[in-house]
């Protein structure tokens, strides 16, 4: 694909539109999903099935005044919500939805996504530090330790996949999984690796995605029963709206990445008719799991969270890395 100006504009607009639409409608999906789990109707007044709720919420948020607390660091305070949304949108540039639908494929696509993902943690730190609020401050301190603790096992697990594939190109990773479910990295019986520990790898990766996106049961940053609203305690208006949308955009990125690395991207489980619809299906199944988990589990503690990462996930993922390396050497 030639990188013309039109292509770039189309790609950027498409990425922003996809991220924003997803963010808005995942809020709706989350509320409907939560309502279903809790045996109540959920938003159902505005439009059919309450589908007009997200734009109306957006209008309400935009119509509000953005208050900045006295004594807050103004520049950081405004930068934080933008930082929450921006990296997620940028990550969509390199995510391949099918073998043709991709804005710009890069041979180091994974690296780029992780680079942007680590910026998401920065937004929490900025928000907590600049708000001049003790709850927000405590929340940002938690966010840092959480981000550090969960990026490590996540990266190690990714390295395992990269070792099997031999490439950091996301398209290449999916291509190597082409075929039925038995070729996918989650259950590689017929694929180019026969590592039967990969299902555990998938679980580790999925857990880390939950933690990286600050979702329940790892939503310690905004643990509302102790820290009021955590890092966005002082945010109202669209500042809060951007944090909110950023959370969902990050979930979409995380689920896309999980789909590509482990679930065979756009491949069909039976090896038939590969295409973008399979990708979308897997993506929303994963997101549904995110919502399901959030409304089922209580929150962990901060020490429980860190113990899980440093004492369980990191040693396990390291062992898996070693095992995979051994397998690759032997076969």
């Amino acid at each position, binding site marked *: 694909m030639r990188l013309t100006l039109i292509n770039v504009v189309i790609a950027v607009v498409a990425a922003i539109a996809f991220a924003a639409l997803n963010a808005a409608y995942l809020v709706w999906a989350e509320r409907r999903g939560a309502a279903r789990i809790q045996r109540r109707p959920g938003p159902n007044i505005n439009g059919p099935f309450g589908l007009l709720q997200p734009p109306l919420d957006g209008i309400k948020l935009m119509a509000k005044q953005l208050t900045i607390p006295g004594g807050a660091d103004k520049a950081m305070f405004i930068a934080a919500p933008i930082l929450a949304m921006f990296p997620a949108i940028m990550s969509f540039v390199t995510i391949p939805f099918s073998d043709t639908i991709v804005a710009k494929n890069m041979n180091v696509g994974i690296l780029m996504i992780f680079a942007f993902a680590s910026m998401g943690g920065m937004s929490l730190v900025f928000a907590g530090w600049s708000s001049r609020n003790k709850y927000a401050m405590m929340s940002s301190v938690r966010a840092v330790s959480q981000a550090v603790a969960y990026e490590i096992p996540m990266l190690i697990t990714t390295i395992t996949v990269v070792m099997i594939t031999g490439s950091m190109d996301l398209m290449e990773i999916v291509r190597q999984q082409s075929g039925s479910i038995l070729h996918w990295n989650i259950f590689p019986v017929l694929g180019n690796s026969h590592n039967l520990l990969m299902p555990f790898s998938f679980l580790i990766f999925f857990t880390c995605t939950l933690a990286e996106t600050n979702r329940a049961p790892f939503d310690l940053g905004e643990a509302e029963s*102790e820290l009021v609203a955590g890092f966005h305690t002082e945010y109202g208006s669209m500042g809060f709206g951007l944090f909110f949308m950023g959370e969902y955009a990050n979930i979409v990125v995380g689920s896309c990445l999980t789909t590509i690395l482990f679930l065979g991207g756009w491949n069909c489980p039976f090896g038939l008719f590969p295409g973008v619809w399979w990708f979308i299906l897997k993506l929303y199944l994963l997101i549904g799991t995110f919502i399901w988990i959030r409304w089922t589990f209580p929150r962990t*503690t901060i020490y*429980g969270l860190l113990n899980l990462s440093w004492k369980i996930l990191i040693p396990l993922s390291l062992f898996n890395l070693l095992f995979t390396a051994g397998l690759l050497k032997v076969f």
Partner: protein
Amino acid sequence: MNAPILLQPDETFILNVGPQHPATHGVLRVKMEMSGEYIVNAETVIGYIHRMHEKMGELKTYPQFLMNLSRMDYLGALGYSHCHVLVVEKASGIVVPERAEYIRAIMVELNRIASHLFWFGAFVMDLGGFSPLMYALQDREHILDMLEAVTGSRLTYCYFRFGGLYNDIDDDFIAAARRFIPRMRKSLKKYKALVTGNIIFRKRLEGIAPLTPEMCRKYGASSAVARGSGINFDVRRNEPYSVYPEFDFDIPVYHECDSLARYMVRMDEIEQSLRIVEQGLDKLPGGPIMPDKKPKIIKPPAGDYYQAVETARGSFGVRLVSDGGKNPYRLKLRSPTYSNMHLFDEACRGMMIMDALAFMGSLDLVIPEIDR
């Protein structure tokens, strides 16, 4: 988990939890001196919703004060009214018909289940799980509907009268209560599967906030706070009142002393209350619900009288000092959560804030009941 930490008082900061804070379930304020996530010192500040019920008691006649009791604890109101009518009846020698006393016990136990259900939901919500609250409220709704049909109100009941009741129960109520019991048992099984067995839930409560029996005694703790610390104390058994000696029920006692033990006690109590309701419906005698002869104006003879009952929140007591007049000379309301909450300052030292707030949830606080 809770490794010993070195507290450095010169590096602490003050965190004001409340009076408006999601975890305090009302207007309660805890001034916490924090060292990072750890609490060095805490001071509970109460009185934000203080209404001076005790002065109202002195200014109003006995029947006028009936409605005040249910404004103290809006979740388990009937237990409080029960105590008040019992002490006045005892003082002025009014004999209550047996049927009325049975209906009182049934109502109080239903109200206790409703209160425990709300606590259960709110407690799990404190720990970050939202859905159980909705399930619990749906079950509670059945109780409120039943109580509403008989008493006329859903939260702040004024149902008991000196000598009996305001309204008799009918067949609809009995049928609804009989339908409710198996339904609630089924729900309890579901809660057990969904919440009690959840590993995250257990990890957050096991070994958290151990309260020694000695500490409970020094503070006068009651209800699940005492029973979770291995103290077999329930006023319904220790000082039997009303028709409770007629019922066969157990007092759940756990010896782990932690937050999970307090949770388990309350969940088991729901089942025990169901048993009492079941037996009450079986044994319900006929007859009137108000005594034939009752003094027109209630004037207990001079003296002082005390009555304790077991409410959903613990041992509630009313001390009535009468000078023989139409109004009480002094009416002291001993609220159980007042003593239970008092523990918090001492017990939460050295805890992490999220454990401390989970502990606070396990105390089952109703703030208007502390402040009176």
